[in-house]
């Protein structure tokens, strides 16, 4: 039994960390939040060059052929630095093609996704918490898709959409197809903007419908990992602040109330690490119960992360309450991680139903 990371996996995390720590400092994320510019294209490009875009693309299609666990480890680091890149949606597009694509679809898209020529995204929910395949109503008939998808990440830059369709399947739409309109929507996490996308008789090809649940499950794992990284960062930010800010003639951390609040944040979050590791591993090994493990990880980790983010604001006092303070960036990162692909409550309905009780 070896529930540890390999040296390669640790190295992967270090490499991504080294890059984003330099290229995506909090000041750069802040500029995006302040509306001064959108994410530097060089950031995603740099990650693409490191092989991050093609992490899970099979080697035969030009990728690194790694697993969801590896992608989740990258997500943790991206969450830790609140890196504004479309890693989640891109990786899930790859998952959709691997799990549901025919050889033509695969050989057309996978190499382009791996080398970053095309950005992929997933258009699943339709608003009002309709993230489950059974909820989808977009129509796919006669090789065209019609319907409206909401909260679609990175839609304005995407080259290809994986679209959830009525009956619980998936269709693939080239973004340049006629009948695709992308509408920006104001969403809280400005680092990872979301869009409404209208498909009006847009040309599409179908993917095997079994891929739908796998795409969602993979998404749950990546979101859990991202929010874990973000929450870990929030705890450290709070500890650093408490160690510097003085009141009543001493640093805040000298007050036990503060020290214990930080310890409780940690006790909530840190022990969840193995949970998303396991969910990723179960996904990769196609173990029985892998979907349930993903739902458990996403609901639990993001709930704990959100609570930690709320505590982090409180511990920063008035400054924590401002736009100017970086805490809001991570707070909103976690907010998006928690609500995207289904609230903890919706996921727990599934957890109960699939637990045999």
């Amino acid at each position, binding site marked *: 039994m070896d529930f540890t990371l390999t040296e390669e996996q640790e190295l992967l995390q270090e490499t991504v960390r080294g890059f984003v720590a330099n290229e995506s400092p909090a000041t750069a994320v802040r500029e995006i939040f302040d509306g001064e510019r959108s994410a530097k294209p060089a950031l995603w490009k740099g990650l693409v060059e490191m092989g991050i875009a093609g992490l899970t693309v099979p080697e035969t299609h030009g990728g690194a052929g790694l697993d969801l666990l590896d992608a989740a480890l990258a997500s943790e680091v991206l969450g830790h630095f609140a890196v504004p890149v479309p890693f989640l949606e891109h990786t899930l597009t790859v998952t959709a093609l691997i799990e549901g694509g025919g050889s033509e679809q695969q050989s057309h898209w996978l190499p382009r996704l791996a080398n970053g020529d095309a950005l992929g995204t997933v258009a699943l929910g339709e608003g009002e918490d309709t993230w489950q395949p059974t909820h989808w109503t977009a129509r796919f008939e006669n090789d065209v898709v019609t319907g409206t998808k909401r909260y679609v990440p990175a839609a304005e830059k995407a080259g290809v959409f994986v679209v959830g369709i009525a009956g619980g399947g998936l269709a693939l739409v080239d973004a340049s197809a006629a009948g695709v309109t992308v509408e920006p929507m104001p969403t809280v996490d400005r680092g990872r903007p979301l869009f409404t996308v209208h498909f009006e008789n847009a040309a599409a090809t179908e993917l095997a419908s079994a891929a739908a649940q796998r795409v969602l499950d993979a998404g749950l794992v990546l979101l859990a990992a991202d929010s874990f990284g973000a929450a870990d960062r929030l705890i450290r930010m709070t500890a650093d602040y408490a160690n510097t800010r003085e009141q009543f003639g001493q640093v805040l951390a000298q007050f036990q109330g503060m020290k*214990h609040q930080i310890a409780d944040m940690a006790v909530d979050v840190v022990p969840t690490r193995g949970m998303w590791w396991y969910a990723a591993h179960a996904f990769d090994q196609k173990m029985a119960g892998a979907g349930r493990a993903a739902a458990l990880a996403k609901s639990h980790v993001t709930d704990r992360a959100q609570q930690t983010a709320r505590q982090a604001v409180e511990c920063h006092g008035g400054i924590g309450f401002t736009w100017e303070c970086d805490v809001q960036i991570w707070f909103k990162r976690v907010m998006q991680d928690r609500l995207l692909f289904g609230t903890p409550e919706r996921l727990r309905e599934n957890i*109960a139903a699939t637990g045999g009780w």
Partner: protein
Amino acid sequence: MDLEFGEKYETLRAQARDFARSSWPLQGDEAKLPEREQGILWKERAIAAGFLHRTVPAAYGGGGLEPDVLAETVIRQELDEAGVPHRGSMQGTHMLVPTLLECGTEEQRQAYIRPTLTGVMRWCQGYSEPGSGSDLASLQSRAVVDGDEWVINGQKIWTTQATEAEMMFGLFRTEPDAPKHGGISYLLLSMDTPGIDPRPLQMMQGGLDFCEVFFNDVRIPAANIVGKRGEGWKVSRSTLKHERMLIGDSTGSRKSFEGLLELARNTPRDGRPAIEDPHIRQRIAELEGYVTAREWAVARIISAVAQNDDMKVMDDMLMAKIASTNVTQMTAKIAIDLLGDLGLEEPSGDAIVMGYGGTDAASWVSQYMTSLSGAIAGGSSNIQRNIIGERLYGLPRDRRPEGH
């Protein structure tokens, strides 16, 4: 990452299972022995077969094997599953034995370890005093040398199993002029020494598991000291070096989670099983998140320890106690809400338990109360929070008055 134990450990697992099944319950005349004697017999056999206390040197009655946390894990899983009496007392096998292995004399090891492992010799822990709990080093019960004896006076409290135990290990002030931590010695006492008077204290759920213990000119041999005079504090901490102690165990929380599911199935609500109630389902599903997190945290610790990489999992290790206390309490809180007015009924007899005692209503009422003990005993939750804040996040130590 590989969650399979592999052939070597699966073989060992099968052997442990076979042993557990064929060795328990005892048969024939042996089955008529008192429960405790049956437990001792079984433990002797389990040690001889290499399934219990494997790493204690053979010279002292153990298995004499190299530490192997994976082997210990598969064996424990099988012994748990089979319901054999393998769990020793915390005090004896988990605290005293490692302390003697670390700091005891050869005579002490020879005299005490073997009978402790088999359960022939039971121990209680005489640390806490009425005025000294979290601040244990302020303890006042004293021992003075008189010829070749220690003479002990004072009082201990909250001493678990003091009326059953044959022996006590305890901390006593022997150097009254030395600074707080430096004036304490670690002594071993036979509980039938004249002058020792243990009096049961009733716990909140009605149980009588702990005592206050009075010492009135109690005389014990001068040789009954572990380590040197004034080193008792260090000796009592020495076992903490064995970080394996911090691994924790998530079997208990999964078991009581399953007990809770059972309770939810069997509890009617408006004519339907409570487990069908959407609100209850939400609460239980959220709890399962905590239970699952604990399991994988433990798996992560075990794997790292097996690779001698303990430092990598120090975070999970330092959080193990408080995290498991929290899960235990959450489980009990859902149980009491499921019980509703059944929770008004006072537990009696076998339902007065410490810890998870089964799926019946009265045991859960006990557990609703006793699940609080984890937050108090053995380093309270607040003390754990201090340790976590200070060791993992570099937060300052509390300011204390001079000398503390």
